[in-house]
């Protein structure tokens, strides 16, 4: 119970944004033609790579001697970047094929 109260007090704005974003996501996607499902999924997948921002912040805020954080963080950045860059590039490749017409 205390936990719920704590979350509500500390993160109220974020909770508002969260709920808005959930509905926004539903609205944005609900009218997509099947042709675009694969590129959309791939694009959305690239966007889910935003988690690299967290990885970057982690590495920046760690001490240069804190090798555990640095190792975990840099591996996270590496994998996250592959997800983001690869995801957008692959999506772009798929969509270029549609545009030729």
């Amino acid at each position, binding site marked *: 119970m205390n936990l719920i109260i704590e979350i509500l007090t500390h993160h109220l704005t974020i909770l508002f944004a969260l709920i808005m974003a959930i509905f926004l996501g539903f609205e944005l996607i609900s009218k997509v033609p099947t042709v675009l499902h694969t590129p959309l999924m791939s694009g959305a997948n690239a*966007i889910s790579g935003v988690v690299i921002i967290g990885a*970057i912040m982690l590495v920046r805020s760690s001490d240069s001697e804190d090798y555990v954080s640095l190792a975990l*963080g840099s591996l996270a950045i590496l994998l996250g*970047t*592959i997800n983001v*860059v690869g995801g957008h590039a692959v999506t772009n490749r798929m969509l270029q094929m549609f545009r030729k017409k």
Partner: protein
Amino acid sequence: MTALINLVYLISVSLFIVGLHRLSSPKTASSGNLIAALGMGLGVLIALFAPIESGNNNYLVITGALVFGCGIGLVVAGKVLMTKMPEMVSLFNGLGGACALLISIAELLNFHNSGNIELASYLTTLLALLIGSIAFSGSLVAYGKLSGNIKDSWKLPSANMINMILLLTLIATSVYQLQVLDTMDLVYFIMIISLVYGITFVLNVGGADMPVIISILNALTGVSAALAGIIYDNMIMLMGGILVGSSGTILTILMCQAMNRSLLNVLAGGFGGGASSAVQVGDQTVKEVNIMDASIMLRYSTNVVFVPGYGMAVAQAQKICKELEDLLEEVEVNVRYAIHPVAGRMPGHMNVLLAEADVDYSKLLDLEDANKFLNDTDVTIVVGANDVVNPSALDDPGSPIYGMPILEILKGKHVIVLKRGMSSGYSGIENPLFFHEKTSMLFGDAKKSLNSLLDELKTIV
């Protein structure tokens, strides 16, 4: 300075929203992807240069990881074959999950090292770890299943029971850890159980349902990114993650609707494997057709429909389909492609492949239009599709796919099925279509068969 940073955050989030919106319409999709990428770039820039309270920046490490990541990402994305796209998306998704897993572990370690634990943040981080781990191992299994390295028959006995136990263990351990908070030991335990759960959860689902699973896993990665966004109080991560989470969820629902099945039914692995059909096929015979007869049938048709499936992707037959189409259109045969929403291994998979082969947009019919067009179709050619044209879905209540909307190709006059042999489809369900009087089989590799058809047709047009 803070105001400027906040402004850029706001722009970056808006770019994500506009990008996703544009991605959902064919004309604007390409720019949508670039806009979303721009939003991502801005977010990363801010993350790199916004002032921080403590820490040594460690730019050398960050730059190294970023450069390597970009390089690998670009090379892999440039090389992958269009037919391997679903596996690729699944693999990329797994990497995103791994990223969430790693930073959650690092943050939890920081909590324990500093001894300063705020319960709400701790819970959020633990959830990000849990969901990220499931998305990571689950995506790898989905990748393995799609690429054929993990056989569909590898299923655990009483998998639903195992999954339930794992899930309950996860919840109980997490609640306990929140009460005691003494060491990291339970955190590692939670991570391992989550990884195992990701594996058993996906392993249990039939291979034909992988599109649904990738969509769910994609949503999960989004949610774990959003949770990580709460940890870092970062709006871009939060909004980006949640947008992916909710759009992935809606896509999952749309895909389940297209198959007329509930999500629970998909997750319980009801499709394929043990399911038995009422159709007895033992002594039925199939009719074969030779290349010459088939090409004559095509030449003197008015309307011809191709029904592509995963077999077309495997045989790389999309370009030959297009050549056949061109040749037939020259002699005024109308050619269309009937695309079932779940044909292939991913929704829209067939559209991408056919677009790669330069097939015109307007010739691709969705389920509804295709079923109208099929009424006046002379010849339907099934190129490596199976379950999406299985008439059991219409008339056999005993079939596991009963009730799923299919392409009703038996409404047309003739059906030619290109197939390697008489094995059943990816879902393992028998298909009475092959024994129907309107159906002729053309055995062999789809690409070879189409090539021979093309050569034969060239001699008679």
